[in-house]
């Protein structure tokens, strides 16, 4: 086996050195009746070239070369090449969690920079070193609010990513935390009246997403006011991190739970991504996940260490703030490099391009179909309602190597034939015009079919 650095003679020599007759001696502690005396039924050993071919074939079967209008919590942005050059360095790629600070300063300093930039972008005072993803970060943020307030129930916006809501439901159920849902109004924003009614003295927090699942920017001030006057916390989930370049961050939030995938992390069919929790300094001791802090060594030299570990499972065991151990360090490094590349000016310009592309596309779609929630500000996603089932339209788009917007029927049946479309800096005008053309065609044919029906009836 090509990864193993031993010759048969080496193995013999080791057996001799340790006083074993054969390798079987070393497995003697396993009761004989359980030992596997056959080959595992897995495919035979492959050469590297065969391996690459096999995966290339899978890649070709996986929408290779298709343009996409999908967003909904996973965004297709350009990834500057130096991200992969840098994260492929073995010193980053093949290092463990930086528990031994003296030989992990590279990882530690880069996490410190990551935490600092997340704070700058979110307007929060502290950020952790990462969580699994945006969905689990949101659930953990809610549990954090429960610990901080000593209250048990949660009010969640229905305009929060449906899969994030499902994850929260899983976590909350076993914690015995009641979860109430507040709907959205015809502005595509959280229905504040419904929120008023749902929040009470037992509410630990209100959880919203902004920009929300429909791409609409929530009225965070108004939501914060309702939460805070009831003594509840406001947790804001941000699924599209690039929005932070041009959308005011939810500074009124007590906890922000975000997904940093947009910052240079490949779509990768859903993961690995990079969750983050950011909050106020006074809440840091209830924050889950690893944290890097600055300190000095014995000579007064600046250095970095993992800190506040007394919150964590390896110290506190069943009393820890969370059971999280491994996080998403290498993915956080991708995000870190991405944020460094775009920086103060670039991130705004990038976000502006996203805004412009989505605005153009929404305007074009609006000429032929109904764009919902257009009265509210939005970032790079919008909902289009068509006469025809969006699955059927998407089927035709596929023929043009275009993946259309996400049909919403599964999550929001009340919206009928609606789909969530996303445009980023990667979406060209040509592709937008092609997609709009196909939607326009669909609308025309539905209309003429209807007219034909009417004529039929008239006759």
């Amino acid at each position, binding site marked *: 086996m*090509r990864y*193993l650095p031993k010759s048969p003679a080496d*193995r013999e020599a*080791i057996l001799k050195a340790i006083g074993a007759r054969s*390798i079987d001696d*070393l497995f003697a502690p*396993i009761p004989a009746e359980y030992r596997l005396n056959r080959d*595992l039924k897995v*495919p035979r*050993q*492959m050469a590297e070239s065969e*391996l690459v071919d096999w995966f*290339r*074939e899978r*890649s070709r079967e*996986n*929408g290779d070369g*298709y343009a996409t209008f999908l967003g909904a919590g*996973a965004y*297709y942005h350009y990834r*500057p090449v130096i991200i992969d*050059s840098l994260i492929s360095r*073995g*010193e980053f*790629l*093949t*290092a*463990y969690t*930086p528990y*031994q600070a*003296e*030989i992990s300063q590279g*990882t530690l300093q880069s996490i410190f*920079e990551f935490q*600092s930039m997340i704070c700058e972008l979110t307007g929060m005072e502290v950020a952790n070193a990462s969580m*699994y993803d*945006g969905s689990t970060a949101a659930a953990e943020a809610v549990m954090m609010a429960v610990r901080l307030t000593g209250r048990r129930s949660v009010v969640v916006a229905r305009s929060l990513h449906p899969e994030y809501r499902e*994850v929260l439901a*899983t976590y909350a159920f*076993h914690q015995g935390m009641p979860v109430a849902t507040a709907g959205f109004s015809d502005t595509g924003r959280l229905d504040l009246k419904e929120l008023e009614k749902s929040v009470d003295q037992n509410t630990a927090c209100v959880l919203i997403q902004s920009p929300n699942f429909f791409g609409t920017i929530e009225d965070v001030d108004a939501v914060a006011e309702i939460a805070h006057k009831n003594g509840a916390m406001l947790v804001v989930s941000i699924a599209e991190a690039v929005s932070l370049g041009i959308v005011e961050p939810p500074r009124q939030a007590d906890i922000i739970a975000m997904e940093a995938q947009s910052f240079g992390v490949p779509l*990768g*069919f859903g*993961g*690995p991504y990079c969750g983050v929790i950011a909050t106020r300094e006074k809440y840091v001791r209830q924050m889950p996940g690893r944290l890097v*802090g600055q300190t*000095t060594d014995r000579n007064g030299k600046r250095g970095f260490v993992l800190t506040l570990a007394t919150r964590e499972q*390896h110290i506190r*065991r*069943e009393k820890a703030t*969370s059971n999280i*151990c491994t996080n998403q*360090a290498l993915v956080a490094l991708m995000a870190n490099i991405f944020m*460094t*590349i775009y920086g*103060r000016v670039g*991130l*705004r310009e990038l976000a502006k391009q996203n805004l*412009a592309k989505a605005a153009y596309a929404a305007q074009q779609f609006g000429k032929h179909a109904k764009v919902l929630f257009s009265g509210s500000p939005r970032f790079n996603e919008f909902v289009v309602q068509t006469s025809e089932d969006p699955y059927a339209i998407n089927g035709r788009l596929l023929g043009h190597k275009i993946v259309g917007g*996400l049909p919403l029927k599964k999550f929001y049946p009340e919206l009928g034939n609606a789909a969530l479309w996303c445009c980023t800096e990667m979406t060209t*005008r040509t592709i937008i015009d092609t997609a709009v053309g196909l939607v326009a065609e669909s609308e025309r044919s539905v209309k003429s079919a209807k007219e034909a029906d009417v004529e039929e009836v008239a006759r």
Partner: protein
Amino acid sequence: MKSVTRKATRHVNQNEGLIFEKSSAGKAAWKLPPLDVPEVDTQKLLGSSERKDLGNMPEVSEIEIIRHFTRLSTWNYAIDLGMYPLGSCTMKYNPRVNEVVSRLEGLANGHPYQPEKVSQGALRIIKTLSECLIEITGMDAITLQPAAGAHGELTGLLLVRAYHQSKGHPRKKILIPDSAHGTNPATAATVGYAVENLKSDARGMVDVAALAAQMNEDVAALMLTNPNTLGVFEQDIAKIADLMHAKGGLLYMDGANMNALVGKVRPGDFGVDLMHLNLHKTFSTPHGGGGPGSGPVAVKKILEPFLPKPVLITKADGTLGFEYDRPQSVGRVRAFYGNFGMFIRALAYTLANGPDGLRQTTEDAVLNANYIRKGLEGAYDLPYSTPSMHEVVFSDKLQGKKGVHTMDIAKRLIDYGFHPYTTAFPLIVPGALMIEPTESESTEEMDLFIEAMRSIAQEVEEDPEMVLAAPHTTRVSRLDEVAAARKPVLRWKPS
């Protein structure tokens, strides 16, 4: 100071500040293509939601970014530089072909919501890996959704709860041996179970009599790491499983140490009902400085109805797809389908090995741990003489007499060019030195390690103060962790 530093030698490395300290207005590492749609009036579109300023985000050029992160990288130790014997972490070689195949365009750019028709490649990878892992563990079904080992534990205990609930009562407690990893009790608490400790016997194994006394109808499951954190195979595993099952409890196996078993024995065959795997340990996906991981949970038939949704199925027309209609499912534990990028790497590893390679890998891992054990016996105290599988645990009992403890020895090991072993864990060994070489080490590298450890033992006798002040060769000396925690500085701010 005695000098036997054969593996490492001092080398120059570059100083480097924080990226913010290199920033100045007008520098840029980005360039966007010209906009092909009309410019927009951001104020008009966003109103009061418009953000005007990005605060202190850096402005730097591309070469500065390359140098910044390259310099930082040289301050890290890594598997690529040498033996990284962290016990229970399985720091094995991370094959580079895994990185190449996971970056193939269609896989790297696949959107989780793209139609199943154009996702067959990704789904095939999920299916193939699932089948391999089911065969390797001897279980009946699997979910790949959990994002890491602890997340797998969480999923596993949710399954345990749902199973018992379906029988009418979720039960109250989880039994956890005192040698267990901290995530086990933390997970049990997250799922709303009380934790009851189970003590180990003189061999470092589960005390079967104690288990028999503690097991009753209130116990939902036993969370057992096997081999356990002493690197010892639980020889009474059959009895343990029987005791659990007789009272309707489940046997959960923490698969952190699966590298000792692959191809040699299957947990499903010795009575385990469910277990998680760490793809970032046994299946070679890179640790990346602390993640991403991936923690699939494999289960027996009885637990299949409760698996997180969606579940991968083969449809009537032979194509693959996801099934969402799973009425008994515990629900979702993560958005989308899990850390797919890690599935690709783990599958590439499995295919590169084949059945013979996987078995040889396990044998070499166990061979190496026993070679280290033999090499260090006498120089360090071996608290349990039970045979070792893939790792060995010594204690600092001998060195403690000179006031030198496991962390000090670990720090001195750095000067010899090695990453330390796991210190102070498992909790049942005071002053533990937990060493797991993995299969990736040659005899030469292990000889250097043994020589270094023996040399340190000698230094402790001759010059304990020098060892206490180690490391002596790193960029920074021991860092003040107490100050870091007392007055936390968790972000950069402009001075």
